[in-house]
């Protein structure tokens, strides 16, 4: 959120277990359109190949998040 407020495009990765949490925090901080990329839970201690597969699965979401203009401040 800090980076987006400074005009730096970001992509925030969350697993689906934290999706509602992330979006709730974004609403509370008036950053509803912060780009969030959701991947399958869990990721902790998973083999690298498995993690790479998860990221490949959201490649288009990741590209869109990073190439979309910075989220403007919202009230």
């Amino acid at each position, binding site marked *: 959120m800090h980076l987006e407020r400074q005009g730096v495009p970001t992509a925030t990765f969350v697993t689906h277990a934290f999706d509602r*949490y992330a979006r709730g925090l974004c609403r*509370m*901080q008036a950053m509803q359109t912060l780009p969030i990329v959701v991947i399958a839970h869990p990721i902790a201690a998973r083999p690298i190949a498995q993690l790479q597969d998860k990221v490949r699965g959201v490649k288009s979401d990741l590209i869109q998040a990073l190439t979309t203009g910075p989220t403007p401040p919202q009230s």
Partner: protein
Amino acid sequence: MNERKKTTPIQFAVNDRLDDIFQFFEHCYEQGWTDGLPVYPPTEKAVNEMLRYTDREPDETIAVVPPKNGVATTRTIAINAIMAGCKPEYLPVIIAAVQAMVEPEYNLYGRQTTTHPGAHLLIVHGPIRHELQVNCKQNVFGEGTRANATMGRALRLILINIGGNKPGITDMATHGQPGKYSFCMGEDEEGSPWPAFHVERGLHASTSAVTMLCAESPHNINDQVSKTPEMYLGSAASTMATLGGNGLYRSALQGEQGLVITAESAQWLAEFGWTKPKIRDFLFLNARQTVGQLRNRGAWGKSPLPDFIDGKDDNARVPIVNKAENILVLVAGGHQRHMNALLTAGYSMSITKALTRKNGTPITSVRDFLL
């Protein structure tokens, strides 16, 4: 981050009948305004009585509480304190505690939204402990004392109702811990042979104050047998340098870890010439694990090692904090030689606040506000 959110006051009429009090709790629970336990109705009379114990205006902003950035006013703090079961005279403590929690170094936003089971320990110092009958001794972390139970609870209700703390929605604590219902203690200053904690922080002994520390459940250290301070505190060091704790992996960051010892143990240590600084130094040197033990487990790799540790040396011994001063030593509890480790996430610093009038003058008694 500090933007204020406008809120619409909610009024709920409650008659004096017991049935209405049950209905009040059911309504509050359905609305998500409780910690799961019954709450008292904050009637206008109760709120006005509590507001006598401050010289702040009722609608004065005391703090902005994350993650919702809700505005905690004197009145809304009082409302939540009454719901928690606080006596009116507890208000100055609650206000100071809220002010402490929103200091940047406390990192309340991170603590409210983490997977870590930290709860907000309210430590009470100075003469106010006696005035409000805060438990500093037997069963200090347990049940039975109204001041401890309700002041700690008031902070949780404030974090829920003003700060937006909701389990599973904004509060992602994996397990949480019972201290999230209430976590409050007083330091046993009279039983301690050493300067009180708030005096170490630069306050006068006669100044009443609070310290907020975000800590895990107290972890008991039961050493009834050791005959030397080194062996005794070695037991504490072992417990505090747990491979599953955050401290070892976060010690390059600004964080603290704590130890609570009884007056009985403190007096015994003092007989050997030990002081709080010596205890801190000992724990800093001995509450450690080797790089080899830490590698690829716990929170390895998520933070750098302290710059005085060679990460390539598997035998290098990593501490739980970045300097001895960040080990907090408190005296509290009852008889015998149990100790309790107050381990933290390592991302938050404790904050101490004096209890004062609005102009900053320390109070001598909560009754100062009634004059």
